[in-house]
């Protein structure tokens, strides 16, 4: 039975994610402490804010419980800062992420016509292997971020261009992440979340 656990580390607004899941009639619940992380078919890790705040809120208890779920095959999707926390490190701040992807984040370089933060809608070039982007025609999503991972990484299945090639979607085994905000990307975000629960099976 499908039930999505939305991990609440206190990193920004999760109301919009919950609202979109309700709209999609996908059963979900907020997971406020690591003890309550079991019994979900899928896990979501949303997050907005500073990398250091993220790594410090991922206590040893959270880390071990998340590792356990992931290693038993529970699919995990990180959103925005949540995706960055699935990785190794970021120039933005201190601490280590969950290290599922050996990727580090760097600041989006300055460019005369492109402002930082990268704020707004951008189109994604998707890999035919992507499960999250499957069936989404001309995908575009809402981005808000100042740090990025390179689109050249082998786990990258969706790329956005903003002066540099940005890893918009990372996917490997049962772990995936999106740099953009599906919960703010209306029908595109809805299709992506639907894909997460239907294409990724525990």
């Amino acid at each position: 039975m499908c039930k999505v656990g939305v991990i609440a580390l206190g990193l920004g607004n999760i109301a919009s994610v919950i609202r979109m899941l309700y709209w999609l009639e996908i059963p979900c619940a907020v997971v406020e402490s690591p003890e309550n992380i079991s019994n979900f078919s899928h896990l979501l890790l949303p997050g907005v804010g500073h990398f250091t705040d993220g790594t410090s809120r991922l206590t040893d208890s959270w880390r071990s419980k998340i590792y356990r779920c992931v290693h038993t095959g529970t699919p995990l999707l990180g959103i925005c800062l949540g995706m960055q926390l699935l990785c190794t490190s970021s120039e933005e701040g201190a601490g280590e992420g969950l290290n599922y992807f050996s990727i580090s984040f760097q600041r989006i370089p300055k460019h005369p016509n492109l402002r930082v933060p990268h704020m707004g809608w951008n189109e994604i070039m998707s890999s035919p292997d992507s499960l999250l982007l499957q069936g989404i025609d001309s995908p575009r999503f809402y981005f808000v971020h100042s740090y990025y991972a390179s689109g050249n990484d082998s786990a990258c299945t969706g790329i956005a261009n903003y002066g540099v090639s940005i890893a918009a979607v990372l996917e490997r085994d049962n772990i995936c992440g999106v740099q953009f905000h599906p919960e703010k990307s209306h029908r595109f975000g809805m299709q992506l979340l639907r894909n997460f629960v239907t294409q990724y099976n525990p």
Partner: protein
Amino acid sequence: MTLPRVIPCLLLRGEGLYKSRNFKDWKYVGDPRNAIRIFNQKEVDELILLDVEASRQDKPIQWKLIEECAGECFMPLAYGGAVDSPETARRLVSLGIEKIVLNSTALKRPELIKEISEQIGTCSTAVCIDVKRNWLGKAYVYNHRSRRQLSLNPLEWASKAVELGAGEIIIQSVDRDGCFNGYDLDTLEKITSSVSVPVTILGGGASLNHCTDAWQRGASGVAAGSWFVFQQPHRAVLITYPEYKKIRFAFEQTQCQ
């Protein structure tokens, strides 16, 4: 290609949506929840909701109404109006508000920008600057709460706001508000040349040509009120928004020039 965001800006007075001309001459538009629901169906890029009475009349923030509005849309919704503390900002974000817009509360106490951006992030903290021109045509910051033109230069204030942690600057022209005569491109260009964060322009926008003109001067967001809620010439209420492919076409054409 990254297009600028085309953003309907909705003004709340009490529980109703209203629209102004030069910050006066208010006309009732409708229920904010319905309007947002319609904009959501039209898949707009982003929305701004400003409670224009909250600061001016010291009214409390309309929490329930804001929560209902946030529940009606699946795109970013920014809120402004009497946000005077990091706790207020945090509470708004927890309701689903993507961005907080600071205006008179930041003029009163600029440190507020730093406090709020440290709490909710610079990407979620926008500062709105109302600009009015004096009889010589020189642009000054206007304080809508005291209804006074300040001897403060918009450029200085924008730079200071960014230094304090604003992740976006919104420039609103009082003189062009509700006039359908295009954006204040001169002020826009001065500001985009000196700050590196996204800048959104508001006031006078009424066509995709106005939007592309603003984009060429560095705007990453083009916002409008009257254009999306009124049908000219008599300001009859009609909620509209251009189709994505028309917006895209207009900007692509501009890029080719």
